[in-house]
């Protein structure tokens, strides 16, 4: 894992480190908090997607994809936000049920990987902040 130096802690460079540090004034606990909140919400929504797709509720599915889309950006993962943007565009075309389910199955693992990445980083920050100051 490549890492970049920010104070004594090195954030994973898979994240847009400069954006995260600027947004939170280099406050690691604030970054950790936003990562935890966002990953929880993204994961909850991901669970809903398949249910909505199976019901054929494309409109609600699109709305929910749109809602959490920026959370990826707030976590410093703009490429995942772009992935959601493309998914939203796809849903705007009201695709048939099978196409919708197929697309979601295709995306599911990558989204889950993104959520795991966020959780791991939040955990690393949490562990770092638990250490007594030297």
């Amino acid at each position, binding site marked *: 894992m490549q890492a970049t130096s920010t104070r004594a802690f090195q954030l994973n460079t898979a994240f847009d480190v400069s954006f995260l540090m*600027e*947004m939170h004034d280099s406050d690691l606990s604030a970054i950790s908090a936003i990562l935890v*909140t*966002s990953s929880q919400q993204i994961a909850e929504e991901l669970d809903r997607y398949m249910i909505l797709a199976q019901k054929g509720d494309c409109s609600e599915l699109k709305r929910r994809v*749109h*809602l*959490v889309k920026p*959370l990826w950006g707030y976590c410093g993962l703009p490429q995942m936000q772009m992935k959601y943007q493309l998914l939203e565009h796809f849903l705007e075309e009201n695709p048939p049920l099978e196409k919708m389910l197929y697309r979601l199955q295709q995306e599911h693992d990558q989204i889950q990987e993104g959520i795991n990445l966020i959780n791991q980083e939040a955990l690393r920050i949490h562990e770092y902040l638990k250490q007594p100051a030297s």
Partner: protein
Amino acid sequence: MKTTAVIVEDLAVAAEVLQKYCVKSGRVTVLNTFSSIEEALPFLCDQVVNLIFLDVEMPGGNGFELLDKLPYSPEVILTTSKTEYAYNAFEYNVTDFLKKPFTYQRFLDALGKLREVSEKKEETEDLSHIYIKSDGKLIRLENDDILYIESMGDYVKFITNEKKIITHNTIKNLTTKINPSIFCKVHRSYIINMNKISDVRENMLYIKGTMIPISKANRTMVMSRLKII
């Protein structure tokens, strides 16, 4: 003077970050945060704010519908993750368009644009009249027609040459809104049109036969504005 604002945003994380930016800037006071236009509308109809940070796609209606329903036109900074709304933003003459997520520097740039717009407006604003909300409509009152404004608790009464209009407002709030070169707060319950005074006797002044008290705290200021020769 700080800009008063509300945030209308259904994504809690986005609202929190924006609130944080506002506090950090020291230039914006966030009066409230709402997650839908249904929640925001009653508040915004009741209280005039300078600025709305407005998301577009929200449950129960989009941000532009909120703007359509408002009885006044505050400055608007759109906060959305979809650039497709740029055309609507142009149509609604919004001050700026922030694509989520945005940096603090980009937020400051938006505040800079807001300041420019406000300054231009002040330069061109017509200070000869005001609009007041009454009976579900906005009524135009020429400053020259207003004799005085009297407090009635949470309401105020505008007394003009021809009529009396009651509206939900306070003397305190009006003090910051009216043209200060014409109007003057003479008592906690009264704002008067300085051009309408017929005579002044000790701690009282008269406008068209109505006696209006001058408070001790305001007397010096009132007297200094009279052309005593």
